[in-house]
């Protein structure tokens, strides 16, 4: 259980996140949608504490995340894996080492710095890569991989952390539709099979509808919608995206607009359509 209360973040006079409150039960898959600049990324980064909240609280169990420091903060980050739009791998290191870096907080700094990982850890890393279907790239430098492969390496690294929560900040924004589906399927699989809570920012409405059981809509730093995908009516969507009457849902979908039908009848339809191509 994960509870956010009145969380705010100011950048100078600008308010990025404004008094956000919600809670996420263990094992849920939550999608956050909204325009760029609505404060989605800032919210996720505050949960991982890559950004510090200006005010408010984040609680996980009995732990006040917003007040963590030093060693405890790093332990929290281990429990709360983060996946980035730009993958944030180390391009010059090989894929296996990149995955092994997920173990950094499980071992002493001295051992890590000497690049000494145990056989068990290496096997774990290979298993994670196998699960994501990219074990054949294990010894290549991460920078030489395609975007979709790199994002899967990042997910494998997140798995190595043995996290309780995975935060994904626009995980598919830089990917083509095929790779986007593979990555989202992997996240959904982790959520379903391992029971890890997944909170993901998405900028395409259709993806959120097809993968998430719960959707949060953000506009100008506030949560303006919190409910099931089926409750996302055109009115709600307009409110989230702050659009006028001529707003078309297609506009929120950047990756799939070539195959989108005029109206979106069934959640998940678009993804199936992509999978079929």
């Amino acid at each position, binding site marked *: 259980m994960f509870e956010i209360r009145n969380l705010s973040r100011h950048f100078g006079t600008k308010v990025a996140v404004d008094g956000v409150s919600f809670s996420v039960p263990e094992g849920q898959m939550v999608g956050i949608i909204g325009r760029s600049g609505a404060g989605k990324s800032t919210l996720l980064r505050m949960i*991982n504490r*890559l950004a510090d909240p200006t005010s408010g609280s984040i609680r996980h169990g009995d732990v006040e995340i917003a007040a963590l420091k030093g060693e405890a903060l*790093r*332990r*929290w*980050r*281990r429990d709360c*894996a*983060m996946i*980035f739009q*730009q*993958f*944030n*791998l*180390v*391009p*010059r*290191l090989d894929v296996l*080492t990149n995955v092994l*870096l*997920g173990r*950094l*907080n499980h071992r002493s*700094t001295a051992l*890590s*710095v000497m690049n000494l990982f145990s056989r068990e850890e290496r096997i774990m890393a290979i298993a994670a890569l196998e699960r994501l279907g990219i074990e054949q790239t294990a010894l290549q430098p991460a920078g030489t991989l395609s975007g979709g492969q790199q994002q899967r390496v*990042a997910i494998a*690294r997140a798995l190595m*952390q043995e996290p309780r929560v995975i935060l994904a900040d626009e995980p598919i924004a830089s990917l083509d539709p095929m790779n986007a589906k593979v990555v989202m399927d992997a996240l959904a699989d982790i959520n379903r099979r391992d029971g890890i809570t997944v909170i993901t920012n998405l900028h395409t409405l259709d993806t959120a509808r097809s993968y998430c059981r719960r959707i949060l809509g953000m506009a100008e730093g506030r949560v303006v919608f919190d409910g099931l995908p089926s409750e996302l009516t055109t009115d709600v969507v307009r409110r989230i995206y702050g659009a006028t009457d001529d707003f078309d849902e297609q506009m929120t979908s950047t990756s799939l607009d070539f195959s989108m039908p005029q109206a979106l009848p069934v959640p998940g339809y678009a993804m199936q359509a992509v999978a079929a191509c």
Partner: protein
Amino acid sequence: MPNRLSDRAAIIERHWREQARTRRLYTLIGGGGLIVVVALSLVFANEANAGKFFERLPFFFDFTKDLVPRDWLEVLRAMFDLPSPYDDGSLKYNYPEGRYLVTADLYIPEYIEKMLETLNIALLSTVIGALFGFVLSFLAARNMMPNALVRGVARRFMEILRAFPDVVIAGFFLAVLTLGPIPAIMAVSIHSIGALGKMFFEVVENADMRPEEGLRAVGGSWIERVRFALVPQVLPNFASYFLLRFEINVRASTIIGAVGGGGIGELLRLSISQGHGAKTISIVILLFGTIVAVDQFSAWLRRRLVGGDAFLPAT
């Protein structure tokens, strides 16, 4: 072409002419100022110099006369410490005296040994400079050190090390320690720490911070983030700057040698002041060859490390 311009065009034309006139005026003032400064400087330098330029100019090549050895083979003999047929017991022709004996028969010629010593001074100083500069650079880089106080202290410290004249450092340690290579090592390394630290932290500041963010999200400590996110990125550039500094330090340690820091520089100054032509020429050849070799080697290695990036040589 129309001879008469429209009103708008006429205005533009007038502006253009005015601008051109101001630019010409500035150029004239700047150029005139420069010429005056240069002329004054030259007169001043001429007055301050021991020998006057135009008086001494006819004798400009006189020093080459002192350099001409009795026999061009002497240069080789001096370089390899072979006995000279002109040996009259004086220091001038007594080449074998400087031999550095490894065993009774095997020796390293004096100048080659001293050249190696100078190279070693340069290498050691560069290594020391790189080790300290490495640590300091991460403390001085804005993206790795959020604490402005630590950053400021690290930067000011490197600035002072860099600006401190190396003659003074060498002179100070010559006064405290003995004569010999250690003051030279101190002077060259202290300068290298400042110079390399600065180059390094600029590399760090230009590094891609996404991997670092990834590792921060994993829960990696500061040292782990430096080790895995930054070092793999910056190491090729660090190595390239290291080589560049090594080139500069070979020259610097020769010069410091000439003011008492040992190595080949000292021998060169002595042999020039004593007018030992063959010795001077052999040292100059040795020095020239070494510098060319070091430059070529380092340029080749740098090209392999970072591709064709041209670096501005820095002091």
